[in-house]
């Protein structure tokens, strides 16, 4: 189907919102009901509203979203698994005048890349991190992640995650908020229109603090992976509400925008 055909309105339809120019008009490789597309869109809208699209450098991570550069029309570089915050540090230190962000999954950020994100946050790197928490390693087939909930079955904890064996799911927005260089840390969810609206505000703030030179901006987005959760998209949204949000409470864990910078 051609793009204009897809966008053509039927008689009983009306355009509710514009598609950001920076969002490339093509079908994504994401599964039906996957929230990566919504997260991409929020980033696209925020960059466009801030007027920084042409000054932005994206650091892609390793996970289902490695192809983010196919969907966001900004300069991009690909980082090794977990190392996006270190790569972003290098980009930003090289070009302090640019907006630099990473987009990382929970395996990437909260497991293999824990040291890099914690130290980039602690140094107060003027970068933004968009963290997509879907409680599994999506790309490699749904293995257990550090964020997998207790009792949740995955391909590497087929009997369900057990506290005594695998430990408790890790809460990143809270941990990041505890570090000195952080200007903003929040958790939002992509399960409903209402929550998506709130998520956009959080994404915006996480970029604003970078632009204002206040410190490190971090936003965690609770997201669905219907494929590896073995459920349909509607049930996945329900699961976010009923199982994820109670353990990963939504909210702003740190916000210094009213006060001074952090370093």
């Amino acid at each position, binding site marked *: 189907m051609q793009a204009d055909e897809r966008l053509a309105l039927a008689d009983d339809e009306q355009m509710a919102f514009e598609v950001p120019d920076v969002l490339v008009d093509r079908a994504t490789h994401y599964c039906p009901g996957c929230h990566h597309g919504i997260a991409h869109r929020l980033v696209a809208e925020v960059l466009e509203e801030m007027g920084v699209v*042409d000054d932005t*450098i994206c650091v892609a991570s390793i996970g289902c979203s490695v192809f983010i550069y196919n969907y966001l029309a900004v300069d991009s570089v690909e980082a090794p698994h977990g190392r996006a915050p270190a790569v972003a*540090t290098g980009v930003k230190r090289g070009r302090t005048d640019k907006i630099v962000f990473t987009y990382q999954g929970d395996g990437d950020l909260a497991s293999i890349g824990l040291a890099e994100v914690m130290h980039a946050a602690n140094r107060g790197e003027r970068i933004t991190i968009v963290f997509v928490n879907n409680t599994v390693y999506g790309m490699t087939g749904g293995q257990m992640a550090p964020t997998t909930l207790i009792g949740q079955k995955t391909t590497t904890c087929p009997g369900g995650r057990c506290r005594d064996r695998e430990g408790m799911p890790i809460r990143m927005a809270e941990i990041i908020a505890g570090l000195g260089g952080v200007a903003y840390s929040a958790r939002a969810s992509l399960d409903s229109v209402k929550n998506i609206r709130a998520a956009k505000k959080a994404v915006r703030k996480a970029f604003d603090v970078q632009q204002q030179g206040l410190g490190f901006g971090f936003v965690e987005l609770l997201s669905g992976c219907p494929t590896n959760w073995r459920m349909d998209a509607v049930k996945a949204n329900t699961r976010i509400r009923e199982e994820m949000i109670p353990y990963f409470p939504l909210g702003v864990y740190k916000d210094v925008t009213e006060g001074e910078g952090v370093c």
Partner: protein
Amino acid sequence: MPHNTTDTGTPERIFIKGNEAIAHGALAAGCRCYFGYPITPQNDIPEMMSYALPDAGGEFVQAESEVASANMLLGAAAAGIRALTSSSSPGISLMQEAISYMAGSELPGVIVNMNRGGPGLGDIGPSQGDYFQSVKGGGHGDYKLLVLAPATCQECYDMMVQAFDLAFKYRNPVMVLGDAIVGQMKEPVTPWKPAAVPATEAADWRLEGAKGRKPRLLKSLFLEDGALAGQNRHLQAKYAAMQAEAKAESFLTEDAELIVVAYGSIGRIAKSAIRKLRAQGHKVGLVRPQTLFPFPGPLLRGLAEQGKRFLTIEHNCGQMVEDVRLSIRGIVDSAFYGHMPGEMPGSDDFLAPILDAMGGK
């Protein structure tokens, strides 16, 4: 602070360690970012960069690990910035994934390895045990680094300038491979000012925001049918073209019956041994590869064709000798003397092995 200059801008001779010469050379070459993690015997490099680089308008970051250092290097390189990391053997092992990504994404950067003893934690003394890791890729996949091997403090300075130029010329990571000897010894060095880095360096590929042009993408993932094969062919052609950069010091090779092949500090110690033996009338010469990749194989082959015999001396258990043998294969073999890492070599240690090789067939 980058270098001692007189009022007229003429460089003076300065008495510094090889490690300091590395830092001076990097600053002269226009290095703007340094990322590193402490490890002996190269700590003088980050220590000097931590004050000199901010003074020169650059950025110094003490990274949380060598894994992070190398990835920061990757990021700065993506922005088209001249950037440096330095470490010693265990730290260089940790960098290998990022270095492979840099090679795959064709990103320029300079990595200094002041080689210490291994395997494992080894010791903090000199060693050439990282030769294979340096010249054969080191990380995953088929790739090469350009590898330069300084033997003097002056070469530490000069080769840093050359390293940055080569990195950006070929869009490839460059390794400067020294050891605890050249890093820690002090010698007079004459700093010199290379031509300024043109503002247009990397202008056709660096990331700086897609103002007025299409977005750029720097990556090493090639999933489309045939794409990775194409990228590998392209990289291999680039590595073949690098052969033009091969360089070596030849010392008394013309009338020599035996050619000693040795690099870095060991090449220099071998030179002292050769001087002693020449004084006794032994016809022995030296080839000291200054580039380890590309390897000066054609030079060695030419000498083999003249009927000369070979002895490779290394401060390891036999690594470069494989490249020497490949270079002269079908004509003659190379004898080998490996000074064991963990023991400090002196020129007298090399006399018997050289005499042995001269007496042998």
